[in-house]
């Protein structure tokens, strides 16, 4: 199997606040392979946005390794980190928040090229035209506009154009389409897919919407209170979830396919504070299957079906899991 493009190991990110230490990310490991989209699903406070920034080293994680194209970013400083990050870009939720309102679209897209001293003025101009066309904007008419003269969908396209201008290998999308209306969201999702095929991009696609993540992802990881609880191929995670939390999430999604289905509130209560997370399994305080051992021991990630891992002492029965007799303690995405 091919080498991972991005390999994250035991990533920990903690913040000191007045009320104590926030355990935002507590030992997360995963791989993103070239050309692959890894989706990360999590609710508010799961630490998914902190995870995204941590990978970019902005700010730096408390501990752990972030190996991107063979180099551990956590060991790099200054110009060398900047150079490594050139191939690792990010698209945020609010396009207007990430675009300087005083700049014209052309200048916004050219900025990363200037920052990385790429090409001559003419070459940069050509590149700006090229990427604007790639994201479906007209360089002539949209290029001169300011962000406020754009719709939300157009502004997000500009943010994507900025991200792809430097020919990155991996784009981290943090709720990148969550604020868009349905019809525009579909256009931008299709754009992400097209760019992936045309430019051979990989994505780390982070969102709270399960259906959205499924749409674009090859593999999906589910995050709860700073830890991954399950990861695997999208199809198996969604159709045969192994973790009770994933099951609860899936049951909570209202659907147009089955209008009579009333989402049963399968779990009660709300996530505990990341300042004082529960011992053992962090989901145990809301889990219908929790036993004593769940408070005593943190369940290790283990592979129960092909490429499908779960961190649970009492995983849900699954057909493919039942077939797998050998249980091994594997990290997500680790190749056998």
């Amino acid at each position, binding site marked *: 199997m091919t080498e991972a493009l991005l390999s994250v190991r035991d990533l920990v990110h903690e913040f000191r606040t007045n009320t104590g230490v926030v355990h935002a990310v507590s030992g997360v490991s995963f791989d993103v392979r070239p050309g692959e989209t890894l989706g990360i699903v999590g609710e508010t406070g799961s630490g998914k946005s902190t995870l995204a920034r941590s990978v970019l080293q902005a700010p730096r994680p408390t501990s752990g390794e972030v190996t991107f194209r063979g180099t551990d970013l956590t060991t790099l400083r200054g110009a060398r980190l900047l150079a490594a990050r050139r191939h690792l870009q990010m698209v945020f939720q609010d396009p207007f928040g990430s675009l300087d309102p005083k700049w014209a679209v052309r200048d916004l897209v050219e900025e990363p090229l200037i920052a990385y001293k790429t090409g001559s003025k003419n070459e940069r101009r050509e590149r700006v035209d090229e990427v604007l066309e790639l994201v479906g904007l007209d360089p002539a008419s949209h290029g001169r506009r300011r962000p406020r003269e754009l719709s939300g969908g157009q502004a997000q396209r500009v943010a994507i154009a900025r991200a792809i201008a430097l020919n990155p290998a991996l784009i981290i999308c943090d709720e990148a389409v969550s604020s868009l209306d349905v019809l525009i969201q579909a256009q931008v999702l299709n754009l992400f897919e097209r760019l992936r095929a045309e430019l051979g991009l990989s994505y780390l696609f982070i969102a709270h919407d399960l259906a959205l993540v499924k749409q*674009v992802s090859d593999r999906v990881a589910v995050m709860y209170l700073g830890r991954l609880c399950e990861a695997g191929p999208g*199809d198996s995670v969604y159709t045969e979830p192994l973790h009770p939390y994933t099951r609860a999430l899936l049951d909570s999604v209202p659907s147009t396919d089955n209008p009579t289905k009333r989402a049963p509130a399968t779990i009660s209560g709300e996530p505990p504070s990341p300042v004082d997370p529960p011992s053992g399994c962090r989901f145990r305080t809301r889990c219908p299957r929790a036993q004593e051992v769940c408070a005593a021991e943190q369940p290790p990630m283990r592979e129960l079906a092909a490429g499908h891992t779960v961190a649970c002492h009492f995983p849900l029965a699954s057909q493919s899991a039942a077939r797998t007799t050998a249980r091994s303690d594997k990290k997500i995405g680790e190749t056998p």
Partner: protein
Amino acid sequence: MTEPLLQVEDLRVAFPDRGRELHAVDGVSYCVYAGQTLAVVGESGSGKTVSSRAVMGLLPPAAVITGSARFQGIQLIGLTDDQLRAHRGADVAMVFQDPSRSLNPTMRIGSQIAEAVRAHQRVAKSQAGQRAVELLRLVRMPLPERRCTEYPHQLSGGMRQRVMIAIALACRPKLLIADEATTALDVTTQAQIMELLLELQAELGMALMLISHDLGLAASYADEVIVMYAGRIVEQAPATRLFSQVRMPYTQALLEAIPRLERPAHSPLPVVGGRPPDLSALPAGCSFAPRCRHAAADCRASEPPLAEHEPGHRWACWHPVGRGGSRGMGRPGQEGSAA
């Protein structure tokens, strides 16, 4: 048929905007019945929020409102703010998207609920405080006595929304309007709040109006669904019918564009080009025609009326989809148009 609780007829709302008129709501008629859950769905700018705020008298003074909105026979449009205050809260209450902006950050939860109680009922302070605890218990808030002594920032988003619902229920309204009330919440919390709203609706016999951009939410929780586009109602049907026998191409486009759990990964989403029309210069004919793949000359010439074409199913379209023998809507993805 029983009398409607709220009957809205030909409601129009226009905002002056730099010498032009923005037609945010353009001739909307619907009824809400006691005990019913009605969902109004649409994208940003469809007029779903403006139409409900017009009924409640919650629009800025510059808004020009015409038409009729009768609550139990009483005309609400044209009433002064003072006259409306008698209906707000007691007859119709609203819950909004962002509870942290609706709550006073410097006031304890209990006092805020008690204030809402005393705004409409002559009760002693201590009694209102007692009522606050009861209301928090009604919205299934754990440890209601303790929560009363806390401030909004000490509560999670889901708990703050429960407080907003408690305040909305303080005067036992006959109609509760939830305007994107669960949009900012996580799915698991959303499921809890929606279950709560339906339970309370059954307990109190309220009508519930869900205003949302989320068709899945409407499908799962509403009895009746209204779809709005560019200030007009374009389709209305019982939830079970609308999603299996969609007629209006706009509703169909919305349904197809939503990523859904049942759809295989990486399948291209059928998309509609263009953007909603400028509300100050609506096109002649159907507002969706410029983006519609079924549009013909008649669609651009005259506006299709919203009429009941099949029992209980209204739509405004000259060329409805899915009629004539074939079952339901076309399979999503088959008629995918270019991005």
